[in-house]
């Protein structure tokens, strides 16, 4: 290590950055591309569900409640306590719970964070 005092490197770097493009992303005007297996909001497929309740049993945050719909027990996701660990997807024997890259879940209405299973049926059915 030379004892000579050099020019502090920050002086140069600071100037050069004025003339380079900032690294800032353009969100919310340009959405980022996420890896395909990003752990976003779960997508539940009621047609594959066998009402076993394993997802609810293994959920560490107790965010999945089994509710009775049409005489069958179905999982109801409470996104406000979900920790997105995807243990439910792993526990599900039929792969009825899948991942999605949707992460913009913010809301001013807490009740909208409860994903009712019947609702997902309707919504899944309607666009098709």
């Amino acid at each position, binding site marked *: 290590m030379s004892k000579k005092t050099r020019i502090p490197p920050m002086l140069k770097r600071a100037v050069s950055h*004025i003339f380079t493009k900032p*690294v800032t992303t353009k969100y919310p005007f340009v959405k980022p591309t996420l890896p395909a297996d990003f752990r976003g909001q779960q997508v539940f497929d009621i047609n594959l569900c066998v009402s076993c309740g394993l997802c609810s049993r293994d959920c560490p945050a107790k965010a999945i409640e089994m509710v009775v719909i049409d005489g069958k027990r179905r999982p109801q996701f409470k996104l406000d306590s979900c920790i997105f660990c995807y243990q439910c997807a792993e526990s599900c024997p039929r792969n009825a719970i899948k991942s999605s890259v949707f992460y913009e879940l913010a809301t001013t209405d807490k009740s909208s964070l409860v994903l009712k299973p019947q609702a997902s049926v309707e919504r899944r059915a309607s666009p098709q």
Partner: protein
Amino acid sequence: MIDFWLIFRILVFPGFTFVLLLTLFCDWMERKIEARIQNRVGPMVAGPFGILQPLADFIKLLTKEDIQPRDAKKFIFKFAPLVAFSVMVFAMCFLPVDGASVLSVSGFNGDLIVILAFVTIANFLLFLSGWASSNPYGAIGSARVLTQFLGYDIPLFLVGLTPAFIAGSLSIAAIASAQTIPYIVLAPWAFVLFIISMQAELEKDPFDIPHAESEVVGGLETEYTGGKLAFLHLTRDVQIVFGAALVVELFLGGSSGPVFFGLPAFWYSLWFVLKLLAVVVITEYITCVFARLRLDQVLSANWKILLPSAVLSLILTVAMVTWVYPLVV
């Protein structure tokens, strides 16, 4: 008889409105430059390129709820920020922007001393405002303001006298107009010292000890809300503009510059503003590339380095004025 021209000059240009707009613009530019140095974008959505950001901040603060802490010294707490602001704006009025000062009578021999005194008064009012809020962080922050400006006022004053010596006048207008060669060329050492002590006086990095968030939270502003906070912020910004303007007047030849066509006043103000922005860029650059020093380091730097070199600079200047400059100019 009401002199409309005088009122215009006081209220609009180059008086209050101009100073206010220039301040907001400088604030925006500072934030933008800081952001760019840090490889960020900076304010972007308020107005084109975020240019209205300081204005939005200001309006928002004015409309916020005004809370007065129970233990605050009410009168001082209320008025110190406002008075500090008006003192700074008043000081700005002595600076010749478009070739002449706001009031033709305000330029007199010795006004340099007067406006340096105004800076001190404004700083003292800021100290009072922090002290009046009866908050431990506010108290520490304002105590630091006091310690720091007591230390750096002397070198600032000494170095500020250098151009006065060269010009042979204590009038800012005279100093500015005497600079056929800008004093930054004639006395670069004084310019450097002046920028450093200005940086300390304005409490910017590496001397922003009164604002060290990690130690004193919001410093003297901690307890302030709403409109009073808006004026505290504005006072600081005017101080920065004022500092830059003073540098322009003392070292960069004031508002002098080539006049191409039309009104000379327009060109003078343009040169003035451009020079001022250049100084703001320099100070902001210094702010960005250094870490904050410790209070004891700042004080020892002042007494051991800055003060002696200010004295040396003055001696050197006197010597130069006596023997060298007559050969050059």
